[in-house]
């Protein structure tokens, strides 16, 4: 595969799956993929009629990413309509800030299922389909919480560390099939998720960020689309940090 001279329309004729597409970053990602020519199938745990109207995507599959049969339905929806899958964006994520001592099994398992097991099942579900058509690109949305010891968010941080590891394993295993696997690591981004933090926590984060602001969903989307497109055809197993420099210092 050779590198593409992209621009707008980097996803003409491509079929993309996006999870967690009902709101925030996932919806923004879907909109951008569609704007650049992709046929997008949306996945979310919530009913997605509203999403479809907002994004012009042609199909929404309601399923939980930690269930294998849900993934089979998601993949089948793409294959029924287009016969192929070129891009998977594992964007669905669960977040609940809680320190180590207050985490407990229930919360840990819930975050594990959505943030770690979900992307793993997703990669396993699309890999054979991508292999048949000569390759594809998988982008996993990790977090800068998977890059350092993020105090106060024990379970979330652990799943995002795990997703980085999982991505590198998948990159190594699937490279022969022309399937690329990369991670985007957003820092503090202005979506509903950031609203779950105490305001003081967000203020402290911004003060520690060299660019001195919170990020926009669009900025994460741009990184995701670079990795999803053929512009990054020689990039696999890599991590793209989008955090205003917060983890550099």
């Amino acid at each position, binding site marked *: 595969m*050779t*590198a*593409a*001279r*992209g*621009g*707008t329309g980097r996803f003409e004729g491509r079929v993309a799956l996006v999870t967690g597409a009902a709101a925030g970053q996932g919806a923004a990602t879907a909109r951008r993929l569609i704007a650049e020519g992709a046929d997008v199938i949306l996945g979310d745990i919530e009913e997605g009629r509203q999403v479809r109207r907002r994004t012009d995507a042609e199909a929404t599959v309601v399923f939980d990413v930690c269930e294998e049969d849900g993934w089979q339905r998601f993949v089948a929806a793409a294959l029924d309509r287009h016969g192929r899958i070129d891009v998977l964006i594992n964007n669905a994520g669960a977040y609940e800030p809680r320190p180590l001592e207050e985490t407990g099994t229930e919360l840990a398992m819930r975050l594990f299922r959505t943030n770690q097991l979900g992307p793993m099942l997703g990669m396993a579900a699309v890999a054979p389909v991508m292999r048949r058509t000569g390759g594809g690109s998988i982008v996993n949305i990790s977090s800068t919480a998977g890059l350092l010891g993020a105090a106060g968010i024990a379970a979330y941080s652990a799943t995002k560390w795990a997703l980085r590891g999982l991505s*590198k394993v998948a*990159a*190594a295993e699937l*490279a*022969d099939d*022309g399937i*690329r696997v990369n991670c985007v690591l957003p*820092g503090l981004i202005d979506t509903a998720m950031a609203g779950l933090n105490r305001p003081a926590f967000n203020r402290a984060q911004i003060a520690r960020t*060299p*660019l*001195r602001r919170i*990020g*926009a969903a669009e*900025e*994460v989307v*741009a*990184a995701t689309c*670079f990795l999803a497109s053929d*512009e*990054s*055809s*020689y*990039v*696999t*197993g*890599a*991590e*793209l*940090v*989008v*955090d*205003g*420099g917060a*983890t*550099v*210092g």
Partner: protein
Amino acid sequence: MAEREERIGRLHRQVAIVTGGASGIGRAIVERFAEEGAIVYCLDLEVAVHEPPPRVRVRQADVSRASDWTAVVEEAMDDYGRVDVLVNNAGIGTWETATELSEETWQRVIDVHQKGSWLGLREVLPKMVAQGGGSVINMSSICGLVARPEAFAYHAAKGALTSMTRNAAVTYAPSAVRVNAIAPGFIVTPLTNVQDAAINDEFIARTPLGHAGSPLDIANGALYLASHESRFVTGITLAIDGGYLAQ
């Protein structure tokens, strides 16, 4: 063609300086940036005779000489009043081990990669700060992050570049200047064409994607980092290495 002209490029009217722009990765970056609407000052030790693409100004320069930097940046400021993008790409390949290396070779490698990039930063950063922002891209290497055998001075210089990138990113972020690096893996260039085929074969064998990258692969990464698309990205080293670092 007309349709092509109408598309607003991703670096529309941006002024860029690219070092080592006459061949290999640098040349691909120059061409890609120009294609996306940038005015590009292409610096190199040896200036090619062929006609440059539109919007490309080819200038003879030694990046390790401060006066050469001053002249180019002055020209860009006189002509356009700004420098939006700097790509410190110029590099030379050397393969000696620590014990084989001469002082002359060591000095030349450090001068071109490390001192050259610093001189570029010293000349360009004040302009970017004054104009309210800019994007710098330093060409590191996977050898700036992990070790391969031999090429001792090259590792030293590339390691320094990743560290310089992080420092400059943190220092100049309050002025909206972003500084990032790229770590290419095995890319087919004049530099790799002249090295031992056995080294190249071994390198590719260790690359999960199983083939060499092209200069355009690096140019596309540089385009992302140069453009507005990456406006919340600073201090990173983007690996474009076919998965070399992942395993």
